[in-house]
């Protein structure tokens, strides 16, 4: 299982398997969690556990498909060497607010890492000429442009 996810990250994004060497993976339903290794040897008996680490992605058995999460890619996406799409300033602003980006990009169809300069925005789904937004709704920025407050002129 861990080997499958590490292999996916290597094949899809060119992230070297060494990057994940010290992490532990755990499956729960279709969700796959990734966590620090120190958790594994701790005594958690008698605790009602609801989650460990963060969600790495979702594994859809029927389709044999892995969907990486935005939060995970924000941590590990910086090690990627391929299937990265670089957005312009204007596109970044659109993408963080939940919009799709329509243009040809240098990526294979499927899940991609969306970046702007050094920052990883998160996950995207590229399908021939269109970047489908994969940022979870609860995480998107509000529609108005920036967090700067209007001057009230007092």
């Amino acid at each position: 299982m861990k080997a499958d996810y590490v292999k996916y990250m290597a094949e899809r994004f060119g992230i070297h398997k060494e990057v994940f060497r010290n992490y532990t993976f755990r499956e729960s339903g279709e969700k796959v969690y990734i966590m620090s290794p120190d958790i594994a040897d701790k005594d958690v008996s008698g605790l009602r556990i609801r989650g460990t680490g963060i969600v790495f992605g979702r594994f859809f058995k029927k389709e044999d498909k892995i969907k990486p999460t935005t939060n995970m890619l924000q941590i590990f996406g910086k090690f990627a060497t391929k299937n990265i799409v670089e957005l312009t300033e204007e596109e970044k602003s659109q993408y963080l607010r939940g919009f799709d980006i329509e243009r040809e990009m240098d990526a294979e169809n499927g899940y991609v890492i969306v970046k702007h300069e050094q920052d990883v925005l998160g996950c995207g789904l590229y399908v021939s000429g269109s970047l489908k937004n994969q940022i979870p709704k609860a995480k998107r920025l509000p529609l108005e442009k920036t967090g700067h407050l209007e001057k009230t002129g007092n």
Partner: protein
Amino acid sequence: MAMMIPNSFRERYVPILGAKNREFLRFCELPLKKTIRINTLKVENPLEYAKSLKERGWILEKIPWCDYAYNVEGIEPGKTEDYFYGKIYIQEAASILPSLALNPKETDFVMDMCAAPGSKTTHLAQLMKNRGCIVANDTSYQRIKALMFNLELTGSLNVVVTEMDATRLNIEDRFDRILIDAPCSCEGTIRKNWKALSRWHPKVCRFMGSRQKALLKVGARALKPGGTIIYSTCTLAPEENEAVVDYGINKIGLSVEKVDIKGLKTSECVTEWEKEKYDEEVKKCARIWPQDNDTEGFFVAKLKKP
């Protein structure tokens, strides 16, 4: 806004504050500054990063007791890209204290008994550099969802989330350090939420106090001998602060250590309140009035298990 402070509350702390009560009430009515904590799990050099924020027009004022926390003006930090990336976390300046006081080592096994929505948990993960392990507990799934959102946002990878009534925790001698940021009457949060005192009553403080003692008791049991508990609240009520620490000393057998945080102004703790006397040792705790550092009201105690 002054109308929202009940009259009984306006007079409540005269026996402690005397003439300073007026200043206390004045600060209660002042809006609270917005504070950000820079998340070093995602930002390598917080100083340089703060500089870059300033270059982008952010007005920042460093929090004296934390090298990576700043008051922010002129911006809603929760609507910025920096927040989206998890580089900053919005957290009241006083609420940065409990995790600092707990001072976990990277290898520690830590429990955060009342964790949601995760301000202190994510701060602990940052202090532990995502090593060791934190058990972050809360009672309701609704609150736990917010906690999980924040763990994901900040990239906190060393956390086990549990859903339990912490007063029923049945664990012995297991954790190196425990944070009990206890549910309380929230008197100290009046500046953030002017409705905080809408249901305030001294009876609430006494009720919360008994819950908090129960929490401290199970927490002390779950702690390894020689381990450390930080007990904190965002209330000023002695029933929920010094009285709980007194109980920890005399009924549970914990000892108190001085809460010593550089750059923080603290006030004398209360040793006598409504005919009750508390152990002189409670003076080692940190009682923080809103007027002391221009923050929320807060209380932090550091306790050791023999």
